[in-house]
């Protein structure tokens, strides 16, 4: 049955998320302005309180799906702050790759560790087939050389899944994922990046120089390079199906925070925000605000759609791109619009709105830019291959 209302069980979790988010928000400004400190693993207020994810136990089949709830929880958490959490969960993007592509032995070995994912390089972003980092087999060891940037959780992770090519002449088919543990000689965390937004977030740059890892650290264990097609590459791309909705959810939570703040300011200033009237009956500022709210609703629904398909076990590659593209644009328009509505008050660092404006800007860039998402959507609509539309 088509339904958009959270159940009582869902709501209990979401209420808890909101309560925690309100606490986390108290720390938001501090860690934004103290870029080189990390928020604590566990906030003081969290002592003795369970992690919100433990509340999933005992949920019934009539509650919303796990994918849907993950999106709502992510959005609910970033409504508080992008980086600060009551309890920092374990796991990074690399863990998703491990689960999707790792052998049972590899999952056994590294499943409990926090793994970052290193794809982007100084000279290659949206087109990962241009990866320059190399992996050369030498006896029973792979020797890794190259540089990686924009590695989320890069400073705090226990290890990282790195994309490297085993044969530069073989293109995308030769790109393999390797698991490299922190502390391996030749693996240097070069710096924590300085950024426009999400400043408290742990974004690192890595350098690998003759970094030697065991042969068994090739994720999935398949050393073969197919000369035609890109089967191996596609295996890696599969991990994106829930991470795209995931980053969209992270963005939409901050946009919602911006809308809530702006609504409060408007109401306090005496503007009445009502919905039943004509399209031209509201004052211009209220009309503008409501258009931003509609964008929020639309983007949120595309995220839930992609997550729902995943919960149903259905392919969601196009829908994941739809929600990522839609949200990437919506969160920019929403936060930029909210500042416009509030004017000089909106740009003051006394309030968090200017921070949300900076923080959401990454949404349309990482995990594939809006342009890349549109390319994927267009190929799917047109039935085109990568070669036919690029």
């Amino acid at each position, binding site marked *: 049955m088509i339904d958009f209302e959270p159940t009582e069980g869902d709501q209990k979790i979401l209420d808890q998320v909101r309560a925690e988010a309100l606490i986390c928000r108290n720390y938001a400004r501090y860690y934004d302005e103290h870029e080189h400190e990390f928020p604590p693993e566990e906030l003081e207020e969290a002592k003795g309180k369970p992690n919100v994810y433990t509340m999933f136990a005992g949920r019934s089949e009539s509650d919303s799906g796990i994918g849907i709830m993950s999106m709502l929880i992510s959005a609910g958490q970033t409504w508080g702050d992008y980086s600060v959490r009551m309890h920092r969960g374990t796991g990074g993007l690399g863990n998703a790759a491990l689960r999707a592509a790792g052998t049972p032995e590899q999952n056994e070995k590294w499943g409990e560790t926090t793994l970052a994912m290193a794809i982007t390089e100084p000279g290659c972003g949206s087109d990962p087939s241009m990866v320059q980092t190399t992996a050369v087999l030498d006896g029973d060891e792979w020797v890794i050389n190259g540089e990686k940037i924009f590695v989320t959780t890069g400073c705090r992770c226990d290890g990282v899944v790195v994309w490297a090519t085993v044969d530069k002449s073989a293109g995308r088919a030769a790109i393999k994922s390797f698991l490299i543990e922190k502390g391996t000689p030749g693996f240097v965390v070069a710096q924590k990046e300085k950024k426009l937004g999400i400043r408290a977030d742990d974004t690192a740059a890595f350098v690998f120089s003759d970094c030697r890892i065991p042969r068994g650290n090739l994720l999935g264990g398949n050393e073969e390079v197919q000369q035609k097609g890109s089967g191996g590459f596609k295996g890696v791309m599969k991990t994106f199906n829930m991470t795209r909705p995931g980053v969209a959810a992270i963005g939409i939570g901050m946009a919602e925070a911006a809308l809530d703040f702006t609504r409060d300011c408007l109401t306090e200033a005496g503007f009445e925000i009502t*919905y039943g009237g004509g*399209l031209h009956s509201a004052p211009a500022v209220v009309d503008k605000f409501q258009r931003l*709210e509609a964008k929020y*609703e639309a983007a949120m629904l595309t995220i839930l759609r992609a997550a729902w398909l995943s919960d149903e076990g259905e392919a969601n590659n196009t829908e994941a791109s739809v929600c990522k593209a839609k949200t990437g644009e919506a969160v920019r328009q929403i936060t930029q619009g909210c500042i416009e509505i509030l004017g000089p008050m909106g740009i003051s660092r006394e309030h968090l709105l200017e921070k949300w404006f900076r923080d959401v800007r990454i949404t349309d860039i990482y995990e594939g830019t809006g342009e890349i998402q549109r390319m994927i959507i267009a190929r799917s609509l047109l039935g085109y291959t990568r070669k036919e539309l690029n």
Partner: protein
Amino acid sequence: MISFKLEEEQQIARDALREFADQVMRPIARECDEEEKLSEEFLAQSWELGLVSTQIPEAYGGGGEERSPITNAIILEELAWGDVALAIAALTPAAFAYAIVDHGTDDQKQAYLPLFCGDSYHAAALAVNEPTVAFDPSIPRTVAEAKGDGFVISGVKSFVAMGDRASHFLVVARNNGGLDAFIVPRDAEGLAISKNEENLGLRGLPTATLELERVELPASARLGGEAGSDVRQLLDNSRTALAAAMVGVSRAVLEFAVPYAKEREAFDQAIAQKQGIAFKLANMHIETESTRWLVWKAAAQLEQGIDATRSAHFARGYAAEQSMWIADQGVQVLGGHGFIRDHLIELWFRSARTISVLEGTLGI
């Protein structure tokens, strides 16, 4: 439980109406528009589908199925994909009937619902729109005042669908500071019905302007009787319905533009292979999808009896903006061919502009 799952019956209805829209509506859409004339054969064919009577209780001769705004939104998208003018013509009686089912007294149900359960098409229509600048349905100029036991209504209503033949009109008016809807028979004294309006789009749909000059009505004409009715809910419902129809137009444009762009070549490749066109198509798809989910959310709230005013406002406002934008982009993808009347894109462009300024008219 948050879910996008269609019931099996909803899938069956969607598939059946998709076929009907493709086989029956598309082939006659252009002709009805050019000749500004509805196909009577089409009205009979659509009536046979039982679209209107299905959700009327058995006691009044209907199919007795639960009222389902969601199912109706899905149906409406399909029919509007076929043609909006024809879709509105087929479903105008439903908008009137659903208002009676949802808000009418037992006597009103008894009096009017059997009209829609017969073998042949029967028209009755909502009269919500008014020909005023920046029309706001929540504060109409049409006003009712008490007179004795009954009411006197005065005002002007425009874009009243099937105005050439509707037996009754459900007129929304201000009453005593609030909103009410009144059932006005075609032959009411003081009611003047214009000849068919000449509009930008939906030319195949006969619409009329109603002039009500001190039309006297008995107390029983007030929808919901003494208690009145939740007219805001009725307006939320029709806003969601209009938005559903706009999704149908958007999808029609996109599904026409995609194969066209693959076939049309320029500079040694299909224009769809150029990012300038491909990204347009991707954006048209993103917004068609986004709008549909807004419609579904509002429809689900209507179905569950939750206050849908905010969601219906978003659905209608967003759909109005996006469907016009999508139709506009569709014309651009076709270039000169988008401007000539050989293709339906030209018709959809006018349909989108027309439907996206309406209120009332449809119901789900």
